[in-house]
């Protein structure tokens, strides 16, 4: 598959942010962990990266659908 590597990249990105969330719950008393430091800017980064990942996944899916159509046509 041509786009396999980009898929893997995105999925690993999503998993990484999920693990970050688990780590947060484990040390609930500690309020100054990564996601809550620096004016919570990391939360903004997580949100933007999620949106970006969603948009790019959408593009990858479109790309594949069109590739399939092209194969069916010729």
């Amino acid at each position: 598959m041509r786009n396999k590597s980009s898929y893997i990249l995105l999925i690993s990105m999503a998993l990484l942010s999920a693990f970050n969330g688990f780590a947060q719950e484990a040390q609930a008393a500690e309020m100054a962990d990564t996601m809550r430091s620096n004016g919570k800017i990391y939360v903004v980064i997580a949100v933007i990266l999620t949106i970006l990942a969603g948009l790019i996944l959408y593009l990858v899916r479109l790309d594949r659908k069109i590739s399939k159509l092209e194969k069916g046509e010729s």
Partner: protein
Amino acid sequence: MNRQWWKILCVILLVYTVVLGLLGPVPALRQLQETIRNLYFHVCMWFGMMILFTISVIQSIKYLRSLDLNHDIRAKEYASTGILLGLLGYVTGAIWASYTWADPNNPAYASFGSIVREPKLIGAAMALLIYFAYFVLRSSITDIDKKARVSAVYNIFAYAMLFPSIWIIPRLLPSLHPGREGNPALNFNDIDARMRMVFYPAVIGWTLLGVWITSLKIRLSLLKEKKWLNA
């Protein structure tokens, strides 16, 4: 070699842009403060638009030289993605300006009045309207070859109009928008070295995203064209 490598590069550069764009060090300026980070997003939209319009006009010239309709489809799709980036640049610029240019001592409508009088904003709106007219023109001609030829010639005119409307006139008039004295963000002396490390990859990343979207649209219209010709 994988032909799709540039799509992966695009994703990597955009992730780099978002992470370093929000976390990286920036110079502390009194008026802009943290909003200077918009350089990686707002300004990149305009750079991307300019690059996509350039590709579009090259495709139009190629069409006029060869009369091959494939080039016409490419020119159309690059122009439409360019407009999308231009609109995003316009809207983000409006948001940015309303928080950095607006005078808190004036009532809101007075600040608004001075913002809409900005030559750079008027020029950008003109440039985008000229490109909207490209699509109006395209959809008003039914004959395929005539449509392709007339709109290719118009596309060259529209591209030529970009230069006075967004590069020349705004620099002749007083404006709040930065960059009257040269090329903002491109000049090695006025952009902070730390920001340059994020800005250039950001331009490449956003432009590649535009090219990716366009390539999908081109393939889709080629498929449609084929279906239409076979039917």
